[in-house]
């Protein structure tokens, strides 16, 4: 049996691994002290309340224990992480030609300006700790849509709105890395979609971490007002270094009455990255949040986007795929809290493990006693490509009313030999056949993405699956 098996080796990820020296950038010393926090706050010209908030968060960070229930994060030593790295540019640009050459080349190679021209309503590009470019199409801006960096918004006409929403959904007390984020956050986007506005084509923020041993802590705050619609895409990548890098971003989404927000992520951090990101959405009456999530990169991930269905008839859809290869331990999933009548949630995930990779699906569905008439359905499927790998499924359900219907199903298995044989009889190589089957397995996510991104995701799967046949 054994000699008939296919051995898939690591593919070539060098496409994402190019890097530029970071010698010109400004950075704070590594580690975490109140002085470093004050220095970051000074650099960013924070209002006074933000400095206080940062210092309070640092205090909470020091007092909070490391999580002891997920993948090991022992390789992450906060004393070695540089929490703020300013790229070699004085300010954020709105004209692509003004962006410094090496940074521009990075994003050109990742295809960001090209996709802006072709399929996006606006683009934000973050390089290390700062946004270097932000632009939104005229016709979208004319609808009253605000898409800018969070720092300018913090000092402009939306300052009060930011203050009343910033880290209210994810308070620094939530967990240790939320506290860290509160202390050292930098960069990220602010989006406000006014009542009734319909942004037909997506906005995108792209995060690139270039400096070795650095952390990226961007904060994304999106408010979609009554009856409005938005699709927001987030992309992340970094070149590979031998030292640990850390990503502890935070995403807070406020979906108003009858509003719809789709939040798509294709995450492809390098395999030295600790991805400890927190994402949360609050959905009001009749509103809908749609999460589309592809996790391919990073060494260790803890990622569970959470939806709080706070208003009557609020809905949540979560569609995710996780691909864990050699050296990766990806703990992903989602949380849904039904806290109002007639709410519904639908969770559909796939995970794939190969070459010793570990993928864990972890979910929680809570239906409170207020959530009469609510419905929830969770479905997760896992595919094991070899026996060195590991795939765990840990869903939890907590139901506190009888006036709700909750269903859950999970499956785990392998690629069927018959399917591979059939495709090979049609002229495909074994490698191509398996890549095709895995792409089909991940179709739940790719069909939800705009075409260009679905193609990129399938390319990522092909890169992961590529290798020699043994």
């Amino acid at each position, binding site marked *: 049996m054994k000699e008939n098996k296919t051995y898939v080796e690591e593919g070539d990820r060098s496409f994402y691994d190019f890097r530029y020296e970071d010698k010109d950038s400004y950075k704070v010393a590594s580690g975490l002290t109140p002085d470093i926090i004050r220095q970051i706050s000074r650099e960013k010209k924070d209002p006074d309340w933000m400095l206080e908030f940062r210092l309070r968060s640092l205090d909470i960070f020091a007092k909070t224990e490391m999580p002891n229930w997920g993948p090991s994060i022992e390789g992450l030593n906060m004393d070695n992480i540089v929490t703020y790295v300013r790229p070699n540019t004085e300010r954020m640009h709105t004209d692509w030609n003004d962006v410094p050459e090496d940074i521009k080349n990075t994003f050109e190679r990742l295809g960001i300006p090209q996709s802006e021209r072709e399929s996006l309503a606006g683009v934000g590009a973050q390089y290390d700790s700062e946004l270097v470019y932000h632009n939104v199409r005229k016709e979208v801006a004319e609808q009253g849509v605000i898409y800018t960096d969070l720092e300018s918004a913090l000092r402009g006409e939306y300052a009060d709105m930011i203050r009343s929403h910033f880290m209210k959904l994810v308070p620094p007390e939530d967990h240790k890395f939320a506290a860290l984020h509160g202390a050292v956050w930098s960069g990220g986007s602010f989006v406000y979609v006014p009542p009734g506005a319909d942004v037909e084509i997506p906005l995108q923020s792209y995060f690139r971490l270039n400096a070795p041993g650095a952390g990226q802590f961007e904060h994304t705050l999106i408010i979609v007002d009554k009856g409005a619609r938005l699709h927001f895409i987030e992309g992340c990548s970094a070149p590979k270094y031998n030292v640990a890098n850390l990503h502890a971003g935070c995403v807070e989404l406020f979906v108003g009455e009858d509003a719809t927000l789709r939040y798509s992520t294709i995450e492809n951090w390098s395999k030295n990255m600790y991805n400890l990101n927190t994402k949360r959405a609050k959905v009001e009456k009749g509103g809908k949040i749609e999460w589309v999530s592809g996790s391919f990169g990073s060494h260790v991930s803890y990622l569970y986007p959470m939806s709080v269905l706070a208003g009557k008839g609020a809905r949540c859809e979560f569609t995710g795929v996780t691909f864990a290869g050699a050296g990766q331990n990806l703990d992903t999933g989602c949380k849904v809290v039904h806290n109002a009548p007639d709410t519904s949630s639908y969770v559909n995930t796939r995970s794939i493990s190969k070459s010793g990779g570990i993928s864990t699906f972890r979910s929680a569905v809570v239906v409170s006693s207020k959530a009469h008439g609510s419905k929830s359905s969770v479905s997760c499927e896992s595919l094991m490509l070899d026996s060195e790998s590991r795939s765990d499924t840990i869903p939890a359900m907590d139901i*506190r009313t009888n006036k709700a219907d909750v269903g859950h199903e999970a499956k785990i298995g392998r690629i069927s030999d018959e399917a591979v044989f059939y495709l090979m009889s049609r002229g495909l190589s074994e490698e191509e056949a398996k890549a095709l089957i895995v792409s089909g397995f991940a179709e739940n996510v790719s069909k939800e993405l705009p075409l260009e991104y679905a193609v990129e995701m399938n390319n990522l799967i092909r890169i992961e699956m590529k290798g020699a046949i043994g």
Partner: protein
Amino acid sequence: MDLVQLREASGKGLSYNNVRVKCGDKAYFGWYRVVLGGSESYDNCSVTLAGKESSFSANVCYRLDGTEKYDLNCEAVHTGKRTQSAISASGVLADKASKLMRGTIDFRTGCSGSVGNETEDVLLLSEEVRNQSVPVILCSEEDVVGNHGASIGRPDEDMLFYMETRGIDEATACEMLARAKIDSVIRKIPDELVQEKIRDKIHGKTRQKKLEGE
């Protein structure tokens, strides 16, 4: 081997029940657990399928009222080749009863050709019940098949409507559905005499509740 365990409705105080089993080649272990009440019950059943082609079947049913609590941990660890497990739990929660079920199918490296299935079906009869379920599948072997399915909720509206058209009121219909759920597990017990004894106990509990109601 089959093991049938009954926790009677009159059970007061705490009950701890711990079952640990290791199955050799082609061995079979069947666990039938019926919980008809008891203020607080904790069950653990952990079975290691170490021998080739060994199998384990767990059939649990419970009926909890008042403020009764039930905490169940059931674990099937597959280490031998071509082993099979089936964990099935079916229950009814009424009043302020609460239940926590952790069911784990653990496929260890080397257990190729194994199959594990877990199903849970919970009927909730009151707004104040609390049901928690954590169905876990752990897997470090490629050549296995694992499935889990759960359905948690109130009685089906269409079924209640049908029964009402037949002159059966909602309370009686719910009681019938609850009994059917428990009976679906009791029917699987391989000894008819034991089945009858358990049914008598259930009637006893229903009669007692009726009297209390009157």
